[in-house]
Every structure is written in C-alpha cells, then in structure tokens.
C-alpha cells in the first residue's frame, strides 16, 4: 500500500517535472551515442556551462510566475559584470564589498525597471526592452567597449575553482535555486507573487499589495542577474561588455521548457534548472558528436521541439490512462 503510494508520488513528481524526464532521456541517448559523454569531467563541464544561465533562469521563474517579463536581463548581466570588475579594479575595494555592491547594483537596476513601468503605467515588455538598450550603452561607456581584465583572485575562484571536487559555481547555483524554490513555495511573498501571476485583480482584492510585490520581484531578479554576472566574470576571468547579450531569450526558453507558463500563475524552479540543463546538454552533446555549426543550429531547434512534443504527448497519454482507471 505504502509502496504503491510512493510509486504514485514519484509518478506525479515526474509528470510535474517533465523537464527531468526529457533530460534523462536525452542523456541516455547521448551516452550510447558517444563514449565521451558519460565521463565525470564532461558531466561537470555541462553543468558548469549552464550555471550562469541557470541562476538567471531561477530569477526568471519568479518573473514569469508573477505574470511579468524582463527583457533587459541580458544586457543587465553585462552591465553588472563590468561594474563589478571596475569597482574592484579602479576603486580597489575588498572582494566582499565588491560582491555586495555588485549585488546591490543589480537590485538597483531591477528596481529601476519596476519603478519605470509602475510609476508611469507602461507595459513591462517595452520598458525592459528599452532599458536593455540603456544598459548596453552604459556598459560600453563605462569600459569604453573593451573587456575589463585583472579581476581579484577570489572572483576568478568563484568561476573556476573546485570545492570537494565540485565547481564552486555549482554550489552557488544550487543555493540560489533552493532559496528561490523555498521562497515560492513557503513564504507569503512567494505565494503573493504567484497569486498575482494567476489573476492580478483577484490578488489585489484579496489584499495582496500588488505594486510592492512587483518591486520585490524585479529586485530579486536583479540580484539573480548580479550573481550570474559575478560567476560569468569569474568564469571568463574578465568582464565582457557584450556578455549576456541575447541571453534573456535563452533564459525564457529554459524556464518555459521547465514547465513555468509564460502567462504566469505557476513557477517551477527545479524545472527551470533542468530546462537549462537540457539546453546545455544539447549544446554539449552536439559539440561532442562534432556536428557542424549549421547542422548544430538545426539539431538544437529540432531537439527542443521534439523534447517538448514528447512531453506534451506523454502527459496527455498519462491523463488518458488515468481517466480509464478512474
């Protein structure tokens, strides 16, 4: 009896987190297709490759779940990255302050986005598309368009070092994801964000402070972007002004693949992380199989479609069998 219950729970879990199933499926296919895939190094590689994106996607899960959008996060990443490098290089601040100020700066940028569209009642889509351009310009002004190198060792360590055989950035990513998952599931702020995404008007009449909640959501997104920017800086040992460009679309795609709907009202952090892993796995796998870059684009597009297709088909299959049983 108990076993059956557990079985059913596992089943339910997998239905809700189909990204995991897709991921496992692709991983199994790849490990048969090539010898180089199922090595510890390569698997760690793959996870490391999506750390930056994952941290960003975790923030984006909150944004989408709350029924909003932020298209500025790509260029925001570049801006915070350059800011971080400059304050440590020029101002020569101690590392801990550099990290703190960078995260505060990210939160500030998120705040600016929210401030603009809340105060002037504009659509977030247009506001963040525009601030993206502003961030891009400011980044290039700050560093005159050239990458900033000479980061302190501690930041490089964040992007490159290992702790107990596992890259430091993976710990950070996991911590960010866990914090966000708990936030969404078990704090009233998280529930309010989701309620607002499900039906803003209903949330408002239930006493949710919608405006304040929007600020919180965008500030948290800013913090996630800042953390991603720091990891990125460490990973490439320099701050690239063009880093992050276009990453917002990858992040949205990963989040949607992970099961969070664009329309809001539900957020699945674990799904988002696995969404990123799926994208990473496809990139890594195609490289290992030495698919040429033109075919790689095609394969990537096709694989994502097939993965989601399988997902949709299996879940309707599951529903159908369930019904027959009932």
């Amino acid at each position, binding site marked *: 009896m108990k076993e059956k219950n557990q079985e059913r729970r596992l089943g339910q879990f997998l239905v809700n987190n189909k990204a995991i199933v897709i991921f496992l499926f692709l991983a199994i296919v790849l490990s048969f297709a090539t010898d180089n895939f199922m090595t510890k190094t390569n698997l760690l590689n793959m996870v490391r490759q999506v750390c930056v994106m994952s941290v960003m996607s975790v923030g984006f899960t909150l944004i989408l779940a709350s029924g909003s959008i932020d298209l500025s996060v790509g260029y925001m990443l570049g801006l915070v990255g350059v800011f971080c490098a400059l304050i440590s290089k020029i101002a020569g601040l101690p590392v801990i302050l550099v990290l703190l100020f960078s995260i505060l700066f990210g939160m500030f940028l998120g705040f600016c986005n929210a401030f603009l569209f809340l105060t002037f009642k504009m659509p977030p889509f247009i506001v963040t598309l525009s601030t993206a351009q502003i961030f891009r310009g400011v980044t290039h002004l700050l560093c005159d368009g050239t990458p900033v190198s000479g980061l302190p060792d501690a930041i490089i360590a964040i992007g490159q070092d290992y702790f107990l055989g596992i890259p430091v950035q993976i710990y950070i990513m996991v911590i960010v994801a866990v914090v966000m998952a708990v936030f969404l599931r078990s704090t009233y702020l998280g*529930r*309010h964000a989701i309620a607002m995404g499900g*039906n803003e008007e209903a949330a408002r*009449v239930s006493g949710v402070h919608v405006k304040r909640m929007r600020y919180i959501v965008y500030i948290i997104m800013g913090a996630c972007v800042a953390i991603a920017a720091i990891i990125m800086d460490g990973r490439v040992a320099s701050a690239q002004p063009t880093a992050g460009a276009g990453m917002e679309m990858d992040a949205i795609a990963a989040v949607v693949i992970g099961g969070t709907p664009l329309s809001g009202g539900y957020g699945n952090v674990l799904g988002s992380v696995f969404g990123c892993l799926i994208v990473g796995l496809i990139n890594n796998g195609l490289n290992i199989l030495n698919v040429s870059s033109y075919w790689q684009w095609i394969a990537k597009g096709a694989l994502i479609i097939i993965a989601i297709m399988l997902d949709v088909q299996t879940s309707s299959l599951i529903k159908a069998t369930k019904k027959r049983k*009932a």
Partner: protein
Amino acid sequence: MGENDLVLKVTDVSKSFSGVQVLNRIQFELKKGEVHALLGENGAGKSTFMKILLGIHTADSGSILFKGKEVHFKEPYDALQAGISMIHQEISLIPNMTVAENIWVGREKQFYKHGFIDRKAQLAKTRELLESLKVSIDPQAMVKNLSIAGMQMVELVRAVSYHSDIIIMDEPTSALTQSEIEVLYRVVKGLAEDGISVIFISHKLEEVFEICDRVTILRDGHYIETRECAETDMPTLIRLIVGRELNQMFPKEEAPIGEEVLSVRHLCRSGVYEDISFQVRQGEIVGICGLMGAGRTEIMRGLFGVDPVDSGEITVRGNRCKIRSPRDAIRCGLGMVTEDRLQLGGIRILSIKVNMTLVYLKKLCTAKLFVRKREESSRCREMMELMEVKAASVNQAISQLSGGNQQKVIVGKWLMNQPDILILDEPTRGIDIGSKSEIHRLISNLAKKGMAILMVSSELPEVLGMSDRILVIREGKIVAEHNRGDVSQEILIKEEFGAS
C-alpha cells in the same frame, strides 16, 4: 437605535467613469448586526458602490464613516485590515491555486511556523472552516476545476473567514441551487447573530424577504429609499426598483408544440454523466434542474461540443450530427448561452458590438468576406434596445458594463443568430427583475415562433414558470421528467436530492 449602533454611514458619495456619472450623492446607513439588502436594476451602481467601500475604486466626493471614523481606503488591503470583506459579483479567485490557498491569500502569515508557511496547518484550518459552515468542497481541489457554483461557495467561505465587521455579498446566490442557498441563509443568519453586518445584493426578491432586515434601493446611480423589510411587500419593492408596475413574472405564452427537433440518445462521458437521452420539440421549452454539480452544465457543454463526449448520438431534425466543436453545433442549428460569462461567454476587452455580432458575423458579409459595417451597428443597436442593455455606446468594452448588462449582451449574441435550438444555461443569472421578465417574454416569443429551447436554471420558480417539460438531473443521470403543471417545487427538490 442611536448613532452608536451604526457601523457604516455613507453620505453623498459620487463616482464617475470617464465622464459618465455612475453614482450620484448616495446615502447609506448600516447598523450593527443587521442584514441590509441593496437593490436596483442592472447598472444602477450597486457593485460600483460596494467596490468603493472595499477600496477597489475611490469615490470622487462624499464621506464614508466606518465605526464612527472617516475612512479613505486606497487598496482592498486597507479595507480588509479595517474589517470589511466582500463576495465579488464576478468570481475573483486565483485559478491555479487550491481552495485552501485561495481562502487565505493575503493572510498566509498567520500560518507561519519557523518563518515558513505551514501548509498542513493551513489545510486543517480550512477543513475546520468548511465543516463549521457545512460546505462540502475539497480544500485541495484546484479552483479552476470547480463549477461556478463551487467558486461562489469558496468566495462565501473566504469572506466569512475574515471575521470582519461588515461582509458585502454582491449577488452571492446568482449561480447557487436551492441547497447551497439554504447554507448561505444559515451562514448569514449566524453572522447577524454574532453582531456582524451584512450588505446583501440580489435580484431575487424572495431572498430579501427571507433574510434581510432593511432594504435600500438605488436607481440610475441615485439613492431612492431605505425601508424596513417587514413594512413592505414585493409589488412595492418592484415598483421602487423598476420605477413602474410589473404585472407578470413568468409570462409564459402557450405555443403550439411541433415535431421533434433535437434528439439526444445515450450521451455519455465517463465519470461526469451517463446515458443521457431526451428530445426537444419545435416550440417547446424544456427546463432542466438539479443540484450544484449534478452535471447539468457538463451535459450542455458536451451537447454543444465544448467538451468531448465519450459516446452518444445527437440528431437534429432527423439528421445525425457529429458535433465535435461549437462550430459544428452552430452549423447544426444550435446556440448556447453559457453559464460562465467571464471565461466562455464574453470577450471582456472587446466592444459590445464585436461580442454581439460574433456568431452572426458571417451572415453580415458581402462577398462572403467583407463585413457590412452599417448594418452591423444598426442590428447591434436593435438588439441592445430589445435586451435593454444599459451602455454608453455599441463600442464600449463589455468589461466596463455592469454584470447584468454583460449577461444581456451574451444572451443577445445568441438571439441575433436565431438558432433552431437554443441552449440557455442560467440565462437570467444576475439580471434584474424587470429585464428578467422581458427576457422571459422574449424566450416565450421565440418558442412561439418555433424555436426549441433547453433551459438550465437553478431558480426553480423560473423552471416551473417557463417550461413545458422539466427534466431533473442527479449525479449525471436524468432521474425524472414532468410535464407543465404536473409538479411542485417541493417534489422537484426531493427528486434533486434523491430522497424518497
């Protein structure tokens, strides 16, 4: 009673939306522990007034004294904190959350344990609450899977759970069947005994006499009068609301009943309904009644192709019809006014015109493509007059209309297309008493002209008054059939419950 007994005193509240005066110097007093009815036609301004009390809208002028202090609520949060809660006319729940979560949205903090929400405690508290109110709804069900009636009950439970000083109920019974209405009566009486004041909005006057102490009437945004219920009667109230006499509530006209138009055989959807068979003839009105969740709406949805059916056969005028989508149904000559006006009925952000002509549009096209705009507008205006829709122009978005007027637009949409068979699921939900009799007259007329009509309604007087034949549904099956005049309300209720 002295001034001290007043929980709420409203003087001279006015409100206008983009230039249109909706409320004009409204007066209102509410005593502690009283149940106060607020009546008026569709668009009289009742909901707007209530939304001002809850801080959803702000008044242009006037003062609101709550427990002796002047208040200006900017957000519903402020009103809820101060002690005013509300059941909204349009369901305002969060579809992707469970019943338990919906009830406590905005108040999750009270379940905090070690800084996080204790879901078990939340669930237990919800169970306790539902049981104490004798409402049988699964607290873990997703709200989006509930029927409209279920949602309305959740709203009731939520409003009560605040333990506020004032509970506003804006048409809480519009989708409820008799048994839930009983629950509601009991709850309201209990609240009054505990010294909580209730503002009760409804278009069903019997309810007012059943539970209300006093009644205030609004007309066209103006305050008309406040009276003790005990000192007034139904015709007086109607006169005060409508501003004229109303002679007959259910103006059923005898129509010649012709040949069979629609025949449904063995319609089945596992787990929802099974073996549904019935016929409707030309000129006949078939009323369908049952309890909440009996499956009436589901059957109509299946019949109209909104949901898939597992098996069954539908014939229209002797021809078998394969109905897989509403489009097929419309092509076979069916039309359906849905129960749910927010999700399925209307397109909220679009204008009255677009909504009203949507089904009929193809017949308004030259060269099968280009819409004849002038004809479209004139037809739309005609229908608005016929249905007595109160709106600024045909181009007003229906989200800006009062609830009852939205319903009229949706009914008008289907009438315009003149189907052979019209399915009406709670057609007069939220419609005021004057227009209701107009709509009833209209339905009778249509039947007389040869339309076959299927009418689902939770209001038994309406079913009894209008139908030629009545089907009773219980747990997804047809359990009884009666001809006009052969049955009383008591018998129907018994059959709905299945009690012997």
